[in-house]
């Protein structure tokens, strides 16, 4: 680079530079602590506006104006509030909080402000979406009708989830809530569904493990992880789900399908409670503020299936709630249950009985129902639900074994087989056509002769055989969503052949 060139470019830069004089509105910190600052001055500030604090060491810290009072403003601070002092200057930005959105975020781990946490460099994004946005209205939506395949047999068959639905995953700690969500993400590979995993107040070690697993299964390339760690301020936890939702809405507006997981909203409510109490808002039940219902309803209402005129994109939300000792009647669980379109209820007892996913089929529902199922699955799963329900009623009698009549015994046997078939390992999502095949086998009573202990082995062999011999059946189910009589016959033959080969 020559000396002349340097001078020239500098000259052109200087020529384009203009001393800009702007009148700024500034305020002063009058009180600061616990991530909250009281600021005086700043007339005309908007609610939920971003404010810029200038710390004593000239670094910039951002905050969010939440309480607008007569003589002061209550601001929650993102980041290191310890650096702030009384008397520090605060500037308006005249912007509502925004996050970067777009393709650049896929495969990344970011904090709720869109800043990278994975050491892969800056997020190159040109577009921004406001964090808080009003959910699409009636005109902009259409009913939920396409299935979102989770790859988990028990969910896809009994409590199907549709694109644009909000399905709650609820259960005690250590019942496999996150595992279920991660499996659902892994299963979206090659299905043109983008995933956003929002971790709220989670242990960073757990997130590191999840990211590694997603990478291992090739799922990270279509996934964004939004992380507000346990050690970070409550403010970041508070905006994390809204930021994740904004990132998802961008893709929805582009006509694509998005799966959003909020892990978990109980910690989100706790973070919001902390902020509210520090802002001196009056506490209500369980010390949560009065608007904690609205906090979650406005978030989950943003899940939608857009009308065809708007591109037909969708945003499916899977919020997670952690209960204490199975108590789903606490404040936050009841709120979120009433907001969502159904819940998947996981139980500790079932988990330790070895039924994994530990899903309680009685308490779990999906209000969208079979509208979100392919025809082939509808055919086989209708009877499955009935069998499971009858089994639950009779289960208590199972111990009387020999005293029972033939019909009851048969029901119980059937129930046991169905329960066994619905078990599934972690990180092993199963494609819909294969699910149809195994459920078909058990529902038709073809497996009555096979010992329960051998069912897992049988399932594996069946999947192998179906992908080989029954390739065209799987293809038909995959493409048309249904199976013809001819395919049904073939499927049945494959199953019976396999039983003959050593499962009697």
């Amino acid at each position, binding site marked *: 680079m020559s000396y002349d060139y340097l001078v020239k470019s500098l000259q052109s830069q200087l020529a384009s530079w203009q001393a800009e*004089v702007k009148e700024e509105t500034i*305020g002063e910190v009058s009180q600061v602590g616990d991530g909250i600052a009281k600021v005086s001055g700043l007339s005309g500030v908007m609610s939920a506006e971003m404010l810029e604090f200038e710390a004593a060491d000239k670094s910039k810290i951002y905050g969010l104006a939440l309480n607008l009072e007569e003589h002061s403003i209550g601001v929650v601070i993102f980041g290191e509030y310890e650096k702030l002092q009384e008397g520090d200057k605060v500037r308006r930005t005249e912007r509502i909080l925004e996050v970067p959105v777009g393709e650049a975020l896929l495969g990344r781990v970011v904090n709720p402000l869109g800043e990278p946490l994975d050491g892969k460099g800056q997020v190159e994004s040109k577009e921004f979406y406001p964090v808080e946005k009003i959910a699409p209205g009636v005109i902009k939506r259409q009913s939920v009708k396409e299935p979102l395949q989770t790859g988990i047999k028990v969910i896809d068959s009994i409590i199907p989830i549709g694109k644009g639905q909000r399905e709650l995953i609820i259960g005690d700690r250590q019942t496999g809530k996150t595992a279920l969500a991660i499996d659902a993400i892994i299963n979206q590979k090659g299905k043109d569904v983008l995933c956003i995993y929002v971790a709220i107040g989670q242990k960073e070690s757990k997130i590191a493990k999840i990211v590694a697993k997603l990478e291992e299964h090739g799922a990270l390339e279509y996934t964004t992880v939004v992380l507000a760690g346990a050690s970070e301020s409550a403010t970041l936890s508070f905006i994390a789900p809204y930021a994740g939702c904004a990132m998802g809405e961008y893709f929805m507006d582009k006509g694509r399908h998005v799966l959003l997981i909020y892990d978990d909203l109980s910690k989100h409510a706790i973070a919001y409670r902390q902020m509210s109490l520090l802002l001196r808002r009056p506490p209500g039940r369980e010390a949560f503020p009065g608007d904690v219902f609205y906090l979650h309803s406005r978030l989950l209402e943003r899940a939608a299936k857009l009308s065809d005129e708007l591109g037909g994109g969708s945003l499916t939300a899977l919020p997670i709630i952690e209960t204490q000792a199975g108590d789903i009647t606490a404040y936050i669980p009841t709120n979120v249950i009433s907001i969502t379109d159904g819940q998947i209820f996981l139980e500790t007892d079932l988990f330790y009985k070895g039924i994994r996913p530990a899903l309680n089929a009685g308490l779990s529902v999906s209000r969208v129902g079979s509208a979100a199922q392919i025809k082939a699955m509808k055919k086989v799963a209708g009877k499955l639900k009935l069998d499971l329900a009858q089994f639950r009623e009779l289960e208590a009698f199972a111990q009387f074994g020999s005293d029972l009549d033939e019909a009851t015994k048969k029901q119980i046997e059937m129930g046991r087989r169905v329960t066994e078939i619905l078990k599934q390992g972690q990180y092993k999502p199963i494609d819909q056509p294969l699910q149809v095949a195994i459920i078909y086998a058990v529902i038709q009573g073809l497996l009555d002769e096979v010992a329960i202990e051998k069912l897992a082995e049988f399932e594996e062999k069946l999947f192998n055989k179906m992908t080989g011999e029954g390739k065209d059946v799987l293809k038909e189910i995959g493409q048309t969503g249904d199976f013809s009589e001819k395919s049904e016959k073939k499927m049945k033959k494959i199953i019976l052949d396999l039983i003959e080969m050593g499962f009697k």
Partner: protein
Amino acid sequence: MNKYEQIKILAAALYGAARDKKQAELEKVVDNFGLHLKGKKLMSLLPEILNELERIYFEDKNIAAVQVISKNKLNDEQLAEIIRLVQNKSGKSARLRQCQDDELIGGTIVRYEDKLLDLSIKNQLTSLKKQLANY
């Protein structure tokens, strides 16, 4: 009651009592106020009470307190210019207070109410630096 509320209440009380009072009466009010502070052991709040008192007075009389920060002392003509500027912008009469700050290099900073007009060379150099660093 916290400290800030106490300061506000005391300042408002003093202003209310001293308003429209003449020489002798005014002295009595101030004396009594001093005795009250002494009796209640509130003397340490005095500087802040005076600040608050000034704020109340300016608000009542519709005056904008203007702080002018510059490197060297400004001459009367320049000050008159600033007063005109603030009066036009805020619609209030202005009361100036001058400060000096060597770090500014040149130019002035004008502050009134919660507004800030940064006309200093230092600020312009910072913004130039920002622009050059962006490329």
